């Protein structure tokens, strides 16, 4: 099975990198960008018997390592 885990900063957490990218887009003349928040994407191949099993493994991975839940949220998507 393939999965994608997306990790993003919680709202209210200052994101200096997102701010810098936002500034760069503006200086490039890309119009209509109101704000940018930077995050991370993990594409994971997983061996599990069923979706529920895969989701449990991914939840463990996200909580234990992929995200720091003090400042970040994560989202799990199983693609097939």
């Amino acid at each position, binding site marked *: 099975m393939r999965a994608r885990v997306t990790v993003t900063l919680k709202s209210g957490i200052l994101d200096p990198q997102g701010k810098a990218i936002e500034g760069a887009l503006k200086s490039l003349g890309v119009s209509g960008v109101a704000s940018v928040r930077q995050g991370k994407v993990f594409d994971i191949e997983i061996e599990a018997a069923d979706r529920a099993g895969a989701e449990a493994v991914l939840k463990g991975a996200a909580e*234990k390592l992929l995200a720091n839940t*003090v400042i970040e949220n994560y989202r799990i998507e199983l693609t097939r």
Partner: protein
Amino acid sequence: MKSAVLVFPGINRERDMARALTLVAGRAPTIVWHADSKLPTGTDLVVIPGGFSYGDYLRCGAIAARAPIMDAVRAFATEGGLVLAVCNGFQIACEAGLLPGVLMRNAQLRFICRDVYLRVERSDTPFTRGYNAGQVIRVPVAHGEGNYIADGETIARLEGEGRVVFRYSSPDGIVDPNWNHNGAMNAIAGIINERGNVLGMMPHPENHVEALMGCTDGRGLFAGLLDHFKRAA
């Protein structure tokens, strides 16, 4: 004072730390590898030094915080053992749950490598007894992610319980945004855990311990620790 300095792949300040400990405490520390699962018997002080563990991949300190030796460090801290975590060590300690909060990218996005001034907020901890409360010391920093952040409730607790022990300040001890080089909340440079036996700090006291370095303001931290163990003995 029997100390153990932890080494993870990418850590590069362990020799500076070992030199400072040997110089001030008169005894060389044991260097402990991350894959070990035990600390040397009779360890008094565990030091997590600075560097770039695992190349700062994922998040600074995130992978090192999950290394086998960290279970032993957590158990050591739970029993009241002293842990000094400097720079990348501070990031590792936060990721390992030994200290609250997170070190984020510096507010102005630049790596900062220079001397800063720290106001010592209290002298009644094993780590700061070599200083006076309110004293200002000059210590180097070298980090890209030293911007301390925690939720409002955690910050209020840290402040309320007097757990902020070092704050970025001017040379005369004024806390001002102009002297808070990395944008840390409340100009926080160093904090202790609830029990007071784990200190995390971004600046490098180990790099200001002998005349050759141009300043010896960092020496008080190690001298204070030595004094703490001498009195306890």
